């Protein structure tokens, strides 16, 4: 059917008017989140003799995050998130706080250029600006409510960092040769100038970035990304400031066949990190590095098979603060919020995996120019995710979703080695195998709504040959299994078991204030953390659910040098997406 220009104009106008009509809404509207959480912790029966530590605690809170959206015009919005929190046990005003959690203005100019000021959540590439999942979050069967809390409280949505500043983007559409050209730029302040306890002012730390991404054809995409974390020396009283520009080019090719979709992506880039000293007689500390990664992904049209293979090379001096900052910073003094001490000797209890899975206060939201410390017990192969420096090797995965989608099985394999040895000419070799199987059995055990079984396991191996001082061998295996039986469309009974085990030895890197490696600390790991949980869950939607669980958790030190511990928890959560 041919549409005449006049008719086209009329149709377009009607469509435009209908869109305008559809976008009409009150000037002020609300959404947000509300949560009620209660936890009672108690010492386990098998705990060591202890008459001076906490025997049991109970805590909880109710909170309401009310997002107030104000639309003065249809292309502008001010959003303020007000948090009202009331501690359980705080009656009649005690334990109540009211805070502003987010404040944002966003809009579009002439419906062409989008801008945002205030709080924002940014992400570029895995090597420039990216918030990678923490080591502890990888395996968290049955712990989705906790993970939701951690991600929400720390603004960890969609691998983005929460930043505050100004961002704008727009795109150009072309008639030929290039389909679209997207421009994006931002400038944010991850840390404002603050007065330290020593009486000095830390400088303002800014993060700026820009991206140009061109969709050349439907098959080819080219992107150039730049990000720079830097400090403004004059805003503080320290005599040193950091600059960390990172550049990254991305070439992406996608080809669709009759049975397969092929995607190939090449990342390549450089970084430079410099500590610039104000004193003229002091040389700047500069380190430069580069990286590249080639990844080829293949997905069958029927989604039955999905596999990829790739190679990654990251130089030892590659530094990208916004991509290498960890959610868990083991160089800071992290303490468990419950049962911080145990035994009659009042030993400081080390953080167990349970603490990491449940406590949102342990997590970091601040970008740091130095490499943060990590814990080899949890992850030693890629502690800074794909941007981990001093790594080269191959990786690949294979995923199968068969039996009418009832089974999903995935296997990830990684074989890496150091680019250069640390403290020796011998290089570490790393291996990682991760397996995940999900089986949605529809009529198992005559349960009407079926049973979901999930098994997830990850094994890591780190080895280095050499003499007795150089040689190291660290092995870890993390496994979890979850069973969920649907009693009704929304009500589920669940049980899970998880275990983290690691043994061997490793050398932790000791770095100075400027991130330079100057020493090593030998650590022996031989421990096992475990969690069992069972409970009920009622789910209205993905983000609105109630769950009650009983959890048993603890840690065993195999060589007996550190006392074991064992605790229990009754946990209730009701979370509502408003």
């Amino acid at each position, binding site marked *: 059917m041919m549409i005449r220009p006049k008719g086209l104009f009329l149709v377009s106008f009607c469509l435009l008017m209908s869109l305008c009509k559809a976008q009409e809404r009150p000037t002020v509207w609300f959404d947000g989140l509300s949560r009620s959480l209660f936890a009672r912790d108690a010492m386990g029966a098998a705990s060591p003799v202890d008459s001076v530590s906490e025997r049991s605690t109970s805590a909880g809170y109710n909170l309401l995050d009310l997002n107030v959206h104000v639309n003065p015009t249809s292309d502008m919005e001010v959003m303020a998130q007000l948090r009202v929190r009331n501690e359980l046990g705080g009656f009649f005003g005690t334990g109540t706080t009211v805070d502003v959690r987010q404040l944002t203005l966003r809009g579009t100019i002439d419906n062409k250029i989008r801008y945002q000021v205030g709080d924002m959540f940014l992400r570029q590439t895995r090597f420039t600006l990216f918030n990678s999942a923490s080591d502890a979050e990888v395996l968290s069967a049955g712990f989705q409510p906790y993970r939701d809390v951690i991600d929400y409280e720390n603004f960890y949505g969609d691998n983005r960092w929460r930043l505050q500043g100004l961002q704008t983007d727009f795109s150009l559409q072309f008639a030929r040769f290039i389909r679209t050209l997207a421009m994006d730029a931002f400038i944010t302040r991850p840390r404002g100038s603050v007065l330290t306890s020593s009486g000095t002012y830390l400088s303002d730390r800014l993060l700026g970035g820009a991206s140009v991404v061109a969709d050349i054809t439907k098959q080819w995409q080219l992107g150039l990304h730049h990000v720079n974390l830097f400090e403004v020396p004059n805003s503080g009283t320290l005599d040193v400031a950091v600059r960390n520009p990172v550049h990254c080019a991305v070439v992406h090719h996608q080809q669709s066949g009759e049975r397969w979709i092929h995607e190939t992506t090449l990342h390549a880039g450089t970084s430079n990190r410099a500590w610039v000293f104000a004193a003229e007689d002091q040389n700047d500390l500069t380190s430069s590095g580069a990286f590249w990664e080639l990844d080829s992904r293949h997905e069958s049209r029927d989604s039955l098979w999905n596999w990829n293979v790739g190679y990654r090379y990251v130089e030892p001096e590659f530094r990208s603060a916004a991509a290498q900052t960890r959610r868990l910073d083991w160089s800071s003094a992290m303490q468990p919020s419950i049962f911080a001490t145990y035994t009659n000797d009042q030993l400081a209890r080390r953080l167990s995996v349970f603490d990491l899975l449940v406590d949102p206060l342990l997590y970091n939201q601040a970008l740091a120019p130095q490499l943060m410390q990590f814990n080899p017990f949890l992850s030693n192969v890629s502690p800074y995710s794909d941007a981990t420096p001093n790594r080269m090797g191959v990786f690949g995965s294979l995923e199968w979703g068969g039996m009418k989608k009832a089974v999903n099985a995935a296997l990830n394999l990684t074989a890496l080695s150091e680019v250069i040895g640390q403290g020796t000419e011998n290089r570490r070799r790393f291996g990682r195998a991760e397996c995940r199987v999900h089986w949605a059995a529809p009529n198992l055990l005559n349960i009407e709504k079926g049973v979901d079984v999930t098994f997830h396991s990850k094994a890591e191996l780190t080895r280095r040959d050499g003499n007795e001082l150089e040689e190291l061998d660290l092995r870890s295996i993390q496994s979890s299994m979850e069973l969920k039986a649907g009693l009704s469309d929304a009500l589920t009974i669940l049980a899970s078991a998880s275990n983290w085990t690691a043994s061997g030895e490793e050398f932790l890197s000791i770095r100075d204030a400027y991130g330079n490696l100057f020493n090593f600390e030998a650590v022996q790991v031989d421990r096992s953390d475990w969690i069992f949980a069972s409970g009920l869950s009622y789910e209205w939607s993905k983000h*609105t659910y109630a769950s009650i669980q009983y959890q048993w958790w603890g840690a065993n030190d195999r060589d007996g040098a550190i006392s074991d511990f064992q605790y229990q928890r009754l946990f209730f959560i009701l979370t509502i997406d408003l």
Partner: protein
Amino acid sequence: MGAVFCDYRLLCVSFSVKRMLTYSMVYALACMLMPFGLAAQESPGEPIFTSNVIPEKSPASSIEFSGFYRFYLYGRNQHETFPNNSGKTLALIAGDLYREPMLLLKLKGLSRERIRFSADFMINSIYKGSSQANQSLTLDLGLNLETTFLTDYGRFRLRSGGVAWYRQSRLTVWGNRSLNRMSLFERRPQTAVDAEAGQRYERYYANGLIDEGVRYGSRAFQGIFLEGKRLPMNFSFKGVIGKSNFNRSVEEGNDNFTACAHLQNELNDSLKISYNFLQSFRRESPVSADYQQYSISTGEVVYRSKHWTAQLEAGWGRFANSHYDLGGGEAVLFNLRTNKNLRVPLTFQLYRISPQFVNVTGNFLNTTVLEVFPNIAGVGATIRTPYQGPMVGLQSPANNRQGASLNFEWTAGRLKLNAGMGCFAEIDSTDNGLTYLHNVNGQMLARLYLFGQRWGPYNALNSNYRGTYEEVNIFEEDGITPARLRKFFSVAEVQAKWKSAFERRNIYVFALGRVNTCQPEFNPVPVLDDRALLRQYSSEIDVCFEWNSRTVLVMNYGVERIRGNQRTDVGDSGDLLARKQTSRLLGWGMDWSLSKRATLFLRHAHYRYSDPNFLENNLSGTESTLEIKMMF
């Protein structure tokens, strides 16, 4: 030449091709670089790169606000003070002396999954000028989440948060809900505003019930609440696990919890049977082994006939702490109430609550275990009720006590009379003293020292929320040795309500008289001579004159006399005589409806509290309040 020609032609062709190529390239470049559109990145097709989040416009929750604004100006001018007064005799205060909202903003919302959420913001300002820090925004009570499930097996309601108001049975969880014999002169913050000023007095005259808000008759809890109704075989249940403000310790977050449950079966339209359970546990400190706990199980039967309702609750309770085990004890509470439409409606109560039956969330006072009260300074002392042998009114049971009371109502024309009498006896002898609640000037004394324990010139006064009780020691005949005895209590109360009209303007008169005595021997009626250890007489009269539909003038006079015999404390007048207190209150005021939702209340009162035998118990002065309350 040919070659030249050819060359020329080739040159021309070549030139043309070059020019065409050049033009083509320029054209192509121009086409390539000339965008046909500049757009914000909201293309419906493939996502175009942006470092930021594409905002999703989700359907919003429905939210509404309600509440009230209450401007409260209070002035007190003390003419006579206690000797330890600092010298400040005049107090001018904006805002209630207690923790009450000036602006209460109740937020109520409904999520997309039809889960209700609510919060009540309390916004106060003390109006003390710019030198004072601004008041922070806080919550009056707390946050509540609530949802309802409709299933084939019944209707279930899940609530989480708090403070939420909860009750299940009189012996387990129940708020004070007495006979509403009181003066209307003093106003409470929760009291609602009526469209016409006289409606409140008319309601009190007609049925004696005053709407005191949702908390009336219930207890404050935080935690998880679950309720099921319309279950198979006429069963229903409700329960809570969480924390109550009666179960607090000095350190917030201690492992204190209270769990209660109520399972009911409605056998037929007339008969209901229930099982009630309560378990309260408190650890004094997370690291200490000190704890206390009590548990209660009761059975309850409610039978309703056409003319009367009988309710019987009986159960067993046990109290223990880390130092001793009080053991178990029984409690029986029987209420018989005839219907209001009878000529003379009656209410009969019979109870026996053993000393071991300890509970602070039920509808009775604890008199045997002092440690059960959370000994928290300030607002935590709100819940510290009279402990030592309290002399209380009718329908206010206590443990270690048994007794009966009878109340009746009678109407003769415009006169409505309700009266009652009761006698009670302690089950075990104790070395406790006595306490009595000040019926007159109790609120005035409480405002002098909020939530103070054992204060005043003789360290005998105790203030809780809008009330004061006084402690009295009892001695043997020698006047020195603390007495250990069983105490017997007798109470008589009478209230007369009369309504008339003058020039078509309503006049209400409410008169209330109470006699409360304690004696060492049983007596079914109050003992009005020195055989009684302590006698308390109080009379209060309220006169309300409805000037017009928007204005009511009110007047109040109250007098209270306390008489102790020589086995109680003696004073410092030199004659070594026992208590002979007199409290008087004379007040007047006005209620003026500013609109259907706003009323102005003015009150002014003269008070006097004195005792010729306890010379330092001598107070007098005036209290004035201006209150503007607007509901929305």
